[in-house]
């Protein structure tokens, strides 16, 4: 009797980037490409890097999507000639830092893109881009909740309804 060849399962998350995984949570919305795609992915990295428990942003969840995030994304584009400069300003302002090696690597790679067209889109299409980012964030949260519900988050419980209706980013 021969042993079946040893095989090590290959986790799918090793072949996709963090932004690929987040975007995959909302398959109905095809990821943007080119400079717009870079802008979208940078905004996702920015959002997911925010230190919610310890930063000032956590105290402004109710206005995060409508004011805090769009204002700071836009303002930073007015004083940045490169993506690196823009990222430095906006990430410092929002206390956002990539959380793990994969996010750090992807953020650094995205910042290597040609700055001018990406900054142009960040400046001219801020609400439209952030609408997409919010949709993706909602989908990722819902997916995470569905896969790993806490007892309170089980569908049909009042706590689960409360979490969704509270608009938690």
């Amino acid at each position: 009797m021969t042993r079946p060849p040893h095989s090590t399962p290959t986790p799918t998350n090793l072949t996709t980037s963090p932004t690929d995984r987040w975007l995959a949570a909302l398959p109905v919305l095809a990821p943007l490409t080119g400079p717009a795609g870079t802008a979208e992915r940078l905004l996702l990295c920015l959002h997911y890097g925010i230190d919610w428990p310890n930063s000032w942003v956590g105290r402004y969840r109710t206005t995060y999507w409508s004011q805090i995030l769009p204002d700071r994304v836009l303002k930073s584009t007015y004083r940045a000639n490169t993506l690196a400069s823009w990222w430095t300003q906006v990430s410092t302002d929002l206390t956002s830092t990539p959380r793990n090696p994969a996010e750090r690597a992807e953020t650094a790679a995205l910042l290597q893109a040609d700055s001018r067209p990406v900054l142009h889109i960040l400046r001219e299409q801020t609400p439209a881009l952030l609408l997409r980012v919010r949709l993706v964030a909602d989908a990722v949260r819902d997916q995470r909740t569905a896969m790993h519900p806490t007892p309170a988050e089980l569908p049909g419980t009042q706590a689960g309804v409360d979490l969704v209706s509270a608009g938690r980013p």
Partner: protein
Amino acid sequence: MTATVHWAGELTARSSIVHAGDTRGTATLLRRETIATPQGLELIPLISGNAVRGRLRRIGEELLRDTLELEGTLPLTAAYALRNGGSLHKSGGNPLSGRRRAEIRTLVPQIGVFGCAASGTIIDGCLQVGKAIPHVSETEHITGIESDVSAFDLVQLETYSHTDDLNDHAAPTLDPATVDDTGPADDSNQMRYSIETFPAGTRFSTHFRLDRATDLQIAFFTDILTTFAATGRLGGRLAIGHGLISLDTQTEIVGGWYEPLDWRHHLLDQRADIIDALRELR
């Protein structure tokens, strides 16, 4: 005889300049315009001709006011017309005739240069004022001035605090009857806000042009420019140190010719006629 005179100007910010455009949260951003650059369209901050013209108008009004001792002599419409250009509204009666408009333009250099709105009509002036365009790489093709500084690296965000020290030991004692203790205990007026500015040292290109102006109007405006160049302010937040500028100009007579004139003595001889004409503005 009239002349057309053009001044090419270079403004230098001696302190940072505020020129409000959009507001984002607690940040006041600079006014921006789309500029077609060789690399494509870009939003570039610049100072409007309206802002520059407004400062010049106020200098002119004060020069006129001081020369003719006009304080306390004019009705509201005339005062507004001189100071801020007036407003177009129904005033009752007939609008000024063309002849009367021409007479007021000739008699009152502030109106001849800047124009105004009064008596249900627009009286146009002979002055054109250019926008103040910063010397950055994105405007090289407009200003003719080379720069290795991008507009996106130039501007800065200055942060201010509004301090709420009413509960400090040195604060004035309040009348207890006026204190509302029912509100939240941490009801504070403390706030931080920021203003986007052009840094001190920024240079701008601009221009001024008098079209078919009289000797009186040219002499009057030359003094306005001299005053602006030496002690001018531009933009907002002057009370907290913003907006100091200096101005260098190059003069060119584009058409016609003019004779220098002592405009102060000229106007003093006609003070009564001038005040009568201004009182006609309704």
